[in-house]
């Protein structure tokens, strides 16, 4: 049996995905920045050594905004994909599943679907888009799946980005949820378990092409905050601070994902938050 090679296995999504591989008794290699530095030229040989014909690759490694300067993030993200491609160039891999981001889409678009023309608003988004282009250049279409998740949330989220998990932590720790403006923006959020489940389904089903991964039902930040407030058994204050960026909304048309993964429909945001707070 061929194995699954996971890059980014110690990250938030990676850990969840690896748990599925364990549960499904899949043979795998879990790479993280501790086992391999994908930005280093040395990684090419390591990848070549550990990858065999017939292996599947799940690429979750990416530097995300907030941890580093944006130009360094973009450059390192591109180095990672280039080195992986160099490492597997002589291998006949079975599948390559790349976890991209909805940051490839323009912020001002109306409801987005997989045919929306990408137009990232920052270098992070461009780095995902260029990674996709690298893969489309070097991996044959019948082996390549690109998943573009919206904001991800779940118990072990370490990113603390503005959204569900930051609101929950802040509510639990300080009894306050702080929103920009009036929290008017609509956003979709995907539960990490659902994303990991879809990645695994994509691997098993041999799905190819580009898929947005979201729930299809966006909530305003204020609605999310109210939901959290009403689900926590203590006094919570929702406060408002001046908006740093203009309002933009994000709605995702999920037809393609639903039709291709009918048994893996992601839970809606309200259900996901309730589950998190019941744990």
């Amino acid at each position: 049996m061929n194995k699954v090679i996971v890059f980014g296995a110690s990250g938030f999504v990676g850990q969840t995905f690896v748990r599925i591989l364990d549960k499904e008794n899949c043979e795998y290699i879990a790479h993280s920045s501790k086992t391999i530095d994908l930005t280093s030229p040395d990684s090419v040989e390591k990848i070549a050594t550990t990858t065999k014909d017939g292996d599947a690759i799940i690429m979750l490694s990416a530097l995300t905004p907030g941890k580093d300067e944006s130009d360094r993030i973009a450059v390192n993200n591109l180095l990672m994909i280039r080195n992986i491609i160099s490492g597997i160039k002589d291998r006949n891999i079975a599948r390559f599943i790349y976890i991209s981001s909805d940051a490839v889409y323009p912020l001002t678009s109306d409801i987005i679907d997989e045919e929306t023309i990408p137009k990232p608003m920052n270098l992070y988004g461009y780095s995902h888009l260029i990674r996709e282009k690298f893969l489309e250049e070097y991996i044959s279409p019948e082996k390549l799946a690109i998943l573009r998740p919206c904001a991800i949330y779940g118990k072990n989220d370490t990113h603390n980005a503005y959204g569900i998990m930051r609101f929950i932590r802040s509510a639990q720790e300080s009894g306050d949820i702080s929103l920009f403006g009036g929290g008017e923006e609509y956003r979709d959020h995907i539960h990490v378990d659902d994303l990991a489940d879809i990645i695994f389904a994509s691997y098993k089903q041999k799905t190819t092409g580009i898929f947005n991964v979201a729930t299809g039902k966006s909530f305003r930040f204020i609605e999310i905050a109210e939901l959290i407030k009403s689900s926590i058994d203590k006094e919570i204050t929702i406060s408002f601070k001046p908006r740093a960026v203009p309002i933009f909304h994000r709605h995702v048309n999920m037809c393609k994902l639903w039709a291709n993964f009918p048994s893996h429909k992601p839970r809606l945001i309200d259900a996901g938050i309730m589950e998190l707070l019941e744990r």
Partner: protein
Amino acid sequence: MTKKPVIGFAGMTHLGLNSAVAGAEKGFHIMCFDQNAELISELQSGKTNINEPDLSEMLNTNSERLEFTSSKEDLKKCNIVYISLDVPTNDKGASDLTPVNNMIELVNNSISGEALLVVLCQVPPGFTRSINRNPARLYYQVETLIFGRAMERALHPERYIIGCAEPSSPVHPLFSRFLEAYSCPILPMRYESAELAKTAINLFLAASVCTANSLAEICEKIGADWEEIIPSLRLDKRIGQHAYIKPGLGLSGGNIERDLKTVSQIGYENGAKVNIPMAYVEHSKYRKKWSIRKFFEHYDNPSEDFKICVLGLAYKENTHSIKNSPAVDLIEAMPDIEINAYDPVVKNIDSAKKLKFHNSSESAIKGADILFVMTPWNEFKELDWQKALISMRGEVLIDPYRLISHDITADYEHIVLGEG
């Protein structure tokens, strides 16, 4: 008075047959030519599988004036020959003109030099002028066939738009004699204008359809009802009583899509901005998936024997055509579940899905978890829904065209277009 011309129609298509029968109804002798001898044989016996109101009856009542032939020699008897082939399109709306070119060559080589050749097909601007024939004997005529109303439109056209080499010269007397029998305005113009006029009509229709659909979706989101708004638009003279503003599931049938593609391509090649027709195409694709989105919104924790019912497969009522049909798209998007289908005319489609055809609505509905009514056939409007729904297992009715009265659906989740 100019003698009555003998009229030929080359290509017994939906367009060709309806136009030919209308010509016979107007009292002209019509030569109906097609290279498919089997089709000609069927028509000679008064049979057609084209489903149009009044077509079969008029085919038989006018049999004395309708001469069916697969011999090109018979075209020599004609004073005027229409090229009446369908122009097939691919899934992107692009035309394949090969069959039309072949037919024009055949007819051009068969008819006399005095006879008139009239292109009645959907061709791009510039096509007619490129035909190798004496321009004084060559015309283009805009067809405005509507599937499901083809005979009515053929007998009572609003106007005739005629493409000519020299619009300032009078239309040939024989051609005038034929056209005047329909008692409608005749608008001669240069070939290119007439060819683009056809496209312009369809683009205005596309604009109305897409604007209505866009606003209907807004209604669904904010709790408004598009049906309540429609009368206020129809009473506005700038929009009008007959405007295409009923909400629907995007553009279907292929013809409007073809013209959107044609205009986009001409703009692209010639450096004109064509983002508007392209936006219609995009919006239509999105709208066509309305019922698919509704299905998946309700496809939670399905039972092992989950089944759906799809009533109506034709892209609209009174036609057998399933070209770009939202019902077919819906079926193809379904997961591995049982699909029970019924359509008054469409009895089969090429699909690998678990699709079972029934011979009645009631039979198809039985045991369904979700019901879709995808084509507004009269038969569905007149169905005894109260009785029919009793045998359903589920409670979700996806009824885009509001064929089921809200009065009997209080116990169901009844989802319609344009209502929030």
